[in-house]
């Protein structure tokens, strides 16, 4: 599965760029960043069939009991910050070496010299990590260049899945260390925090049958359809839609001359209709591509009706996704789909000036009112790789450091990495919550976390009621989660199939906006099949048969 293409992942690279507001790199001569694949057609060489032998044992570890435990894999939550933190490491795991590490950054660049955060963490881990922080928005270009020049590859490289460069399968073999001997099975017991990471997540770190990466774990549900429950309440809307039809009616009702019901709900439409991320395995073992499914067609028809009835904000019709959040938070639209992480970010922005601001995700809806289907998201979205070396002690030291970095919520290690030094980067308020100082904004940016991170928990107690609302919603939604075909597998497609998708994406926008009719879908599917779709199907069929 090409990770960045997976629709459950939330945003395609392009939407992400627009979100970032920095547009697209302005030259066709520059490298691309979407996953493509190898030139070799043999699926055996690139298929990510993970033999369970290479996966680390899963040894869950609870330093503190969550108030909202995980249900069916949902994110666990903490209603309060534990007053006593556990110190997992008595002595620093590192043995004084210095490593270079390249990580992306979505935030203000911190100072490298005299940075108390770096100094404190490096002292605590017992090794010095020298960061080469790179602009997150152009990180794919940087990666493409650096990976092509083996000498320039730093000891530790963070690679977000949406930045995995084309033909990465050829790079990963020679450039990066095979971690299987260090972590597979019971070997992982030397690294208890890494053993605390679920098997599904590790499965996603397997390239070519070998454990190659360390994960930044994600959540099983990545996207939701949000609505402004505060405004709904004001207007006396209490009935939430339970079918696709009802949602359309609600949208029509919410739209008036000065306000529109929604942003572009294409992603929401695929959620409601349970459109598979990429393939569906039929009972007879054959594969159906998502665009060939009835669900896909229905979702597209539904979205086109939404646009046609005038419920979509004109700026969203103009495909301006950069300001989608601003439209939603300002109440210009009341329904919008977003990544689940967008929820608390909106609260962070809005609660300061508007304490009554509130948004909620709709409980999962099935188009026909039946049982909803949610497809499980990528178990990890950001991976880190260790440069291949003959010095196995060095690898072991780096893994020990990674284990420190993966210390879960409730440990002093977690607090240090995420909040910095108490009294310098944060003060503790009466809720026990770390309140960042001004210095934190300058010095403390997420860097270490991109090398290894514990499983996700929700401890955002600073937003009243948020943790409970979030965890109960996800615990409920988690019952509908299913594994999509080829779940958790790193499959690199031959890159001649890479261009199949763009015409489809264009068609989705065209049909939604009424520039083309749903009837054009059949022709587009035919074109897709004849210009490589059938071969792609065969490619995946071979992967499936090899399993």
């Amino acid at each position, binding site marked *: 599965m090409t990770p960045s293409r997976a629709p459950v992942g939330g945003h395609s690279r392009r939407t992400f760029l627009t979100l970032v*507001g920095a547009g697209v790199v302005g030259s066709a*001569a520059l490298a691309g960043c979407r996953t493509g694949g190898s030139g070799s057609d043999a699926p055996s060489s690139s298929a990510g069939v993970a033999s369970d032998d290479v996966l680390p044992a899963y040894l869950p570890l609870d330093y503190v009991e969550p108030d909202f435990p995980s249900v069916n894999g949902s994110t666990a939550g903490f209603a309060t910050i534990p007053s006593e933190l556990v110190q997992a490491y008595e002595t620093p795991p590192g043995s004084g070496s210095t490593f270079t590490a390249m990580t992306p950054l979505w935030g203000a660049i911190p100072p490298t010299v005299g940075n108390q955060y770096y100094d404190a963490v490096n002292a605590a881990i017992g090794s010095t990590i020298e960061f080469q922080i790179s602009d997150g928005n152009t990180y794919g270009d940087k990666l493409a260049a650096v990976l092509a020049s083996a000498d320039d590859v730093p000891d530790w490289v963070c690679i977000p899945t949406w930045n995995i460069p084309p033909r990465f399968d050829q790079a990963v073999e020679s450039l990066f260390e095979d971690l299987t001997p260090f972590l597979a099975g019971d070997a992982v017991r030397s690294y208890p925090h890494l053993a605390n990471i679920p098997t599904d997540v590790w499965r996603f770190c397997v390239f070519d049958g070998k454990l190659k990466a360390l994960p930044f774990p994600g959540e099983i549900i990545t996207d939701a359809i949000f609505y402004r429950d505060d405004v709904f309440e004001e207007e006396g809307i209490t009935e939430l839609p339970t079918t696709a039809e009802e949602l359309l009616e609600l949208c029509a009702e919410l739209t008036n001359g000065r306000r529109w019901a929604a942003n572009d709900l294409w992603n929401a439409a695929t959620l409601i209709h349970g459109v598979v991320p990429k393939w569906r395995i039929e009972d007879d073992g054959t594969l159906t591509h998502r665009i060939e499914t009835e669900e896909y067609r229905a979702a597209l028809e539904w979205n086109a009706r939404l646009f046609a009835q005038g419920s979509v904000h004109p700026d969203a019709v103009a495909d301006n996704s950069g300001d989608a959040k601003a439209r939603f938070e300002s109440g210009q639209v009341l329904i919008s789909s977003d990544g689940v992480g967008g929820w608390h970010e909106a609260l962070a922005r809005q609660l300061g000036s508007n304490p009554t601001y509130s948004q909620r995700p709709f409980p999962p809806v099935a188009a026909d009112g039946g049982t909803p289907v949610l497809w499980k998201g990528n178990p990890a979205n950001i991976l880190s790789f260790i440069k291949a070396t003959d010095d196995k002690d060095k690898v072991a030291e780096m893994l020990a450091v990674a284990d420190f970095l993966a210390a879960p919520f409730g440990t002093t290690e977690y607090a240090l990495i995420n909040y910095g030094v108490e009294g310098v980067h944060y003060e503790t308020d009466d809720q026990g919550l770390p309140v960042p100082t001004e210095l934190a*904004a300058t*010095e403390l940016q997420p860097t270490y976390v991109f090398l290894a991170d514990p499983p996700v928990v929700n401890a955002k107690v600073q937003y009243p009621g948020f943790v409970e609302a979030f965890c109960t919603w996800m615990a409920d939604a988690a019952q509908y989660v299913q594994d999509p075909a080829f779940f958790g597998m790193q499959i690199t497609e031959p890159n001649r199939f890479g261009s199949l998708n763009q015409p489809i994406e264009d068609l989705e926008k065209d049909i939604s906006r009424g520039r083309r009719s749903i009837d054009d879908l059949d022709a587009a599917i035919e074109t897709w099949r004849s210009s490589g779709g059938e071969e792609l199907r065969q490619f995946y069929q071979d992967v499936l048969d090899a399993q």
Partner: protein
Amino acid sequence: MTTVSTPTGPQTPALPVAPRRRPRNRHRPVWQEQPSLPGAVAKGLVLTLICLAVLFPLYTVVLTSISTQATITEAGGLVTVPGEITLAAYRQILAGGIVTRATMVSIGVTTVGTLLSTTVSVLCAYGLSRPSSLWHRPILFVLVITMFFSAGMIPTYLLVSGLGLIDTYWALILPGAVSAFNVLILRNFFMGLDPAITEAARIDGAGDWRILGRIVLPMSKAVVAVVALFYGVGYWNAFFNAMLYINDNAKWPLQLVLRSYVLQGVTLPGSGVGQVDVATGAVTGLPVKMAVMVLAVVPILVVYPFVQRHFTKGVIFGAVKG
């Protein structure tokens, strides 16, 4: 020719009519006729409209950069009506001294780069400016080719890395030091100079270096200023090479640092509630984006008038003097 003729207005024999109506513009050369009233009104109107079309969006950008989140939420985007004002975005960007150091880096790179590029380009342009000089056609061809055939990012990276320029400021200057476009512009102006003057100097025994330094350059201040401006703005705005070639964050130029503020608060694809957001006190989104836009332009605003002097002196000034 319509676009060209509008500004000057209808061609009335204006001389006898106008002087009584309005006082004579002291900047008008004696030989120039008074403009007709409709002509002047039309011109004023067009210019006012043009300025407004630029100033209004500019105003919303600046206003948004100093508005509070509440005001921006209310406006649902760029702010057009002033609400609460705050300098938080600017304070945040300028705190910590990183921007200051990056500004020094950018000024250094821009100065050295502009000097180098302009010098090399002027030399090259002059070297090609005499028709039929030795090898000038093949050399021109070599130049023009570079305008249409580019090297890919990866080969260029491998070259820069191979030359040991990674993490040096030269990596920000050398790869794009010569723009064939600018050389052609310079050459075009040099060729427009009256050949009689240079010919006279040559007969007096002056060599080409001397002719360039003593005659051609002083007569071409305007175009050299324009080309230097093109190069300067290019170096100042560039971030991509720095992103590729500079690993040491302490050596980042201003544009790259400013971009990092724009990215603050971005929701990562697929990121969930676990995504670290330590700097929750940070100003994010529109005000920071707009503040960055403003800060990036300020140095250009400062420098532009000095450069502008060189390419606007001309007809009118000369005429007043004469």
